[in-house]
């Protein structure tokens, strides 16, 4: 049996972390040393260890957002060595493991940087704009109660699968952070595709795509100019073909609507 490379040798890492007390103050990188890091640790556990050390020295710990630590809530997010969520494909920061790094490595930590995401503190940014996008139309207007039996609305397996592929977006915002224009097209494209894949979501599809697109512009998200950085950064592998779908839906809505 191939057991995890359970070598309990510890690593020492040089951490350059972005420190910024609040939205108003200027930020800067600070250098710290993370000691006693083992390969089994997650990236956030590494920061925990470093933070405990900083607290002991009377230094304010590095502030970062996190909650589930299972790669599903979308709360965590930081730019690690220039890449949102770090160097490994298809993982969130909380599911990145230290076995990806070597003893003596230097690691740069920065927050998501995008016009629509103001910095709150250190690595924490305000992603309220993404909620505003959903509020502008990212739902199906079904009232509680008074709906038909679940099986009364059959959905073909391919449509169900497409819908589910799109619905896997965790709303982390890495796509926005990775995009040179700070665009939220991948996030919106995923939602629009998810809901448009089902008969019950088609009815409002045109209205939805127009409302969400307008809101995107209003909130300061940039435009998509096909860099595909979003897809590369997305921890859930959300495909850029959903952006194409978004564009198609938009054109359809504008022409027919």
């Amino acid at each position, binding site marked *: *049996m*191939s*057991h*995890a490379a359970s070598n309990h040798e510890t690593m020492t890492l040089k951490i350059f972390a972005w420190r910024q007390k609040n939205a108003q103050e200027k930020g800067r990188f600070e250098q710290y040393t993370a000691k006693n890091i*083992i390969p089994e*640790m*997650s990236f956030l*556990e590494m920061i*925990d260890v470093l933070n*405990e050390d900083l*607290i*002991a020295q*009377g230094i*304010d*710990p590095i502030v970062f*957002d*996190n*909650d*589930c*630590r299972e*790669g*599903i*809530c*979308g*709360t965590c997010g930081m730019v690690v060595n220039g890449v949102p969520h770090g160097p490994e494909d298809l*993982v969130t920061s909380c*599911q990145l*493991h230290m076995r990806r790094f070597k003893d003596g490595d230097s690691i740069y930590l920065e927050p998501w940087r995008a016009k629509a995401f103001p910095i*709150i*503190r250190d690595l924490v940014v*305000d992603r*309220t704009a993404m*909620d505003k996008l*959903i*509020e502008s*139309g*990212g*739902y*199906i*207007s079904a*009232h*509680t*109660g008074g*709906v*038909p*039996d*679940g*099986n009364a*609305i*059959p959905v073909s*397996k391919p449509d*169900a699968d497409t*819908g*589910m592929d799109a619905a*896997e977006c*965790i*709303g982390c915002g890495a796509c926005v952070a990775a995009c040179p224009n700070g665009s939220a097209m991948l996030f919106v494209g995923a939602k629009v595709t*998810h809901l448009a*894949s089902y008969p019950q*979501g088609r009815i409002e599809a045109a209205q939805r795509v127009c409302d969400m697109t307008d809101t995107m512009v209003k909130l300061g998200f940039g435009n998509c100019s096909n860099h595909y950085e979003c897809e590369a950064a997305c921890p859930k592998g959300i495909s850029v073909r959903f952006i194409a779908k978004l564009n198609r839906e938009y054109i359809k809505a504008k022409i027919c609507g």
Partner: protein
Amino acid sequence: MILDGKCPSGPIEKTWDKHRFDMKLVNPANKRKFKVLMVGTGLAGAAGAASLGELGYNVEAFCYQDSPRRAHSIAAQGGINAAKNYPNDGDSIYRLFYDTIKGGDFRAREADVWRLAQVSNNIIDQCVAQGVPFARDYAGYLDNRSFGGAQVSRTFYARGQTGQQLLLGAYQALARQINAGSVKMFARREMLDLVVVDGVARGIICRNLVNGEIETYWGDAVCLATGGYVNVFYLSTNAMGCSVTAQWKAAKKGAYFANPCYTQIHPTCIPQSGDHQSKLTLMSESLRNDGRCWVPKKKEDCGKPVSEIPDEARDYYLERKYPSFGNLAPRDIASRAAKEQCDDGRGVGPGGRGVYLDFASSINRLGEDKIRERYGNLFQMYEKITDENAYKVPMRMYPAPHYSMGGLWVDYNLQSNIPGLFVLGEANFSVHGANRLGASALMQGLADGYFVIPYTIADYLARITPGTIKDDHPAFKAAKAEVEANTKRLIGINGKKTVTEFHRSLGKIMWENVGMARNEASLKYALEEIPKLREEFWQNVKVTGSGAELNQQLENAGRVADFLEFGELFARDALHRKESCGGHFRTEYQSEDGEAMRDDENFCYVGAWEYKGVNKEPELHKEPLKFENVHLAVRSYK
């Protein structure tokens, strides 16, 4: 005091319908005059806030994350039950009701469980209408699978992300109401106190987590949907921010805390890899549909590669001990069975703390593709964490704290003993009894939020005058001052140990003495140690920074402070309950073959505790449980 759950009487099939008819209604034009506070926007809270907003009430909703979409409900993988009987395998509302009562080891109220089973079918319909991407078969119909404790396939799922998809559905319904202006959302707010005026819940005190401001909110009713408390064990499958704080603050204001010792230890979690670990990862129970649990029969084989242990040298202990349920035995039973194997020295992996969950025979039978389709993302997640490919070698599993069946006491209307304070979802104690079957917490959260609270809160609101007490009332000022003083005190200690160190110490005491198996001696020991640790905390904790900024150390300090008080109540409840039932296993009360022994004669009740002050004994109130439709029986899965 004998507590009254206010369950409707009459034939069980009619209880909810009759009750709905008997309850008062609020005139549509009057609804907007009422303001309801919804604390927590997970499945229960988001569904509740959306439904109440839709009905026309003024709702203000709160969560500590940056968005309601991140509530811990998002982490649920496996699925949600409903009694649809789509697979035509003999399911019915009655069977779901029966399985749940039995699964909970006869420590839940019949009427509440009936209602849950009854509305379960509406939940699926509702979610489908919202666009929740449930799995479909090739004909376009909804697909099902099985979960522990049931012999029918009644679990609906969305790949391994059911909780995520259900929460996004509820979150989107909530977003729609926010857009419509009926719900005001306050994210990054932590509720730090409940305001009670003349015995009635009137509002809450929150910390704005971004700027540290202490804010006051008034409401005609307060709903808590703040999730569970198993992070009292430090390591658990719950999110980092899950706490008992909201429940505990309410308990300190007079709400009774019911059955705190009933916690679920989930059998299929990835074993702990070291002391650095901050949380444990659950692998969905649905894996036990196709995975077989085993350990080597002989201790000498434990270190050997799997390929060198032939089938005859393996002990498929669940299939052996529980032939009719096999690998799908309920969680408490599967957890204890795993621990038993490891305690017996036949565990595998580091420290011998693991059992195998093996897919080899299913892969042989169905092919790797089928298994990939069913559980692909779970296998991926396992590989990310352990660096092992579970298509090639079996997964290793160990039990971990997962879910709290206890919670604030509520009556049939989900109202606590404090008028105007309602409790929804995992935060209340209502339907699971001493053990929760798989795929039924999601069901409960959504049932409470979409289909119970909209009716029952009306019955309360219809009897009161809206807006009589606002947050200029002195009780708000007093509560706010208290919260501010508490913050100051935490920051002022400036001791030597970090908050995490205290949490870890508490977790160790809890896990070792109040965990999967407990006895009088271990519980008494915990009851001595917890107050000592609490004392030290208030002398020696170090919280950096100030209260006037985003300060995660301060947030955590507050949560750990509450756990340090609550942990004691937890142990006390376990000590008083001299029987074994569901997730509460007292080693003194077991049969010869190690099964839990309930004592219906003396303990067939809900134990609800009234807080009397720190370092003071709480007072126990009992609500006797009556079983008229399901006969009290030894719970057997053999």
